């Protein structure tokens, strides 16, 4: 697959959820190496769009992925009971039995990176403080990284990211996006990310899809997110977020 090659085409997508029409008349396409941000208010159908793209819900219209493409999915923050008797290692082993590979993926998503100058210590830290701990004991940021690692274990060509920073404090948020940037740059990964934060969209995405059940805008962030579509999307006040470049 070469850069810029089309890997996803969506045409006239419609989806219903509990009998209610959530998505209508949605068309867009994604090329290899794109970062497509999907923005819209709560209940706009962003997560439903992901579910349709993953084939988890019925839909009408066309969703066409390039052949042989591996799609990874990082769900919105999942709430795990602190008391749940499941270690991080067991969780990751549902997908990958090879511990060395698990450790290398955990390193690549920056878990325990404060020890990265001492590789031996880093591995020990990962084993003792991450892998053998209960999954529910991880901090919000660690959990998000473990979920990214979970998706990366499949060696995906495309990552679908549902609100990567929900429930993470601002400093953690910044580094999660740096990680996404690294994955995008280093692995040339294509990404679709749902975000509520327009700043993030300007900073990281090369395309944006605004969604409020139907498509409000689509294109590069600086052209697509004009005052008119922002007003349609969020009501009056959102216009102030517009960056003039």
């Amino acid at each position, binding site marked *: 697959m070469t850069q810029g090659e089309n890997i996803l085409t969506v045409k006239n997508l419609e989806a219903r959820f509990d009998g209610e029409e959530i998505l209508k008349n949605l068309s867009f396409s994604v090329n290899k190496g794109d970062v497509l941000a999907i923005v819209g208010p709560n209940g706009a159908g962003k997560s439903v769009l992901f*579910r349709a793209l*993953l084939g*988890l819900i019925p839909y009408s219209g066309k969703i066409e992925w390039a052949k042989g493409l591996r799609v990874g*999915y990082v*769900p919105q923050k*999942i709430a*795990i009971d602190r*008391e*749940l*008797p*499941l*270690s991080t*290692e*067991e*969780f990751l082993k*549902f*997908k990958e039995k090879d511990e060395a590979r698990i450790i290398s993926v955990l390193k690549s998503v920056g878990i325990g990176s404060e020890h990265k100058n001492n590789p031996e210590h880093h591995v020990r830290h990962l084993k003792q403080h991450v892998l*053998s*701990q*209960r*999954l529910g004991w991880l901090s919000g940021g660690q959990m998000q990284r473990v979920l990214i690692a*979970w998706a990366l274990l499949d060696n995906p060509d495309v990552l679908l990211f549902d609100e990567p920073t929900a429930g993470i404090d601002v400093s953690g948020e910044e580094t999660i996006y740096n990680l996404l940037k690294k994955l995008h740059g280093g692995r040339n990964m294509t990404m679709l990310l749902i975000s509520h934060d327009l700043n993030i969209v300007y900073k990281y995405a090369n395309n944006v899809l605004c969604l409020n059940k139907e498509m409000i805008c689509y294109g590069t962030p600086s052209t697509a997110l004009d005052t008119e579509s922002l007003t349609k999307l969020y009501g009056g006040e959102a216009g102030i977020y517009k960056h003039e470049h």
Partner: protein
Amino acid sequence: MDALYLQLLTGSLIGLGAGYVGSFMVLRRMSLVGDALSHVALPGIAIALLFSINPFFGAFAALFLAIVLIWFLEKRTELPSETLVGIMFTLSLALGLLLTPEPELLEALFGDITKIFATDLAITAGAVVILLVVMHRISGKLMLGIISKELAQAMKIPIHKLNFIFLFLVAVIVALGLKVVGTLLMGSLVIIPAAAAKNTSTNLTQYTKLSMIFGVLSTILGLFASRYFGISPGPTIVISAGAIFVATLFLKRK
């Protein structure tokens, strides 16, 4: 075979199976459902007695209907509708109390381990072995479904099908355990060992193993206590499980 060995072996096998399925009942927040579920067996036993069928089959049929109901409710609402389950299942207990002939009533409510024979051991052993094998195969996937339905679906795990298999196994172990601990208390043998194991475990392997060990231990302790004090084993088994639970509270990992 000596009656005591027969009882110990049968009881231990039931404790083992109850511990395993119980560990997932607790994780799925179905503790109350598990408890109420065991009451459903009573009208099944009563109807079986009225028609002179083996009470095990009556109990199992009633439990099977109940798990189908729970399965549908879960599928529709994601969460087990505890109120509805509570009402329907205690109603069926009331119905069972009215229908069960007086002489058999105590036995149905509290079990009667002295009526366990070699055939019961054989049936229990066969069913528990199958239960352990199936649980072992589906436990990882069930766990994933508990953590995140979306992650499980994205991995193409057939959650609803697995839930049904799981509930079926619950019905099997509850029906098998009725002779040992009775309808009133079988739910507790499913739930308490697992709750105790949850107090002390950091990972799934440890948790399910401990839950099975506690299940077996409760049954063995309870059977000896019942012999020693000359009382019915159902209550002593459940009290033993309760004692283990209290002990684990002190070992609880923060």
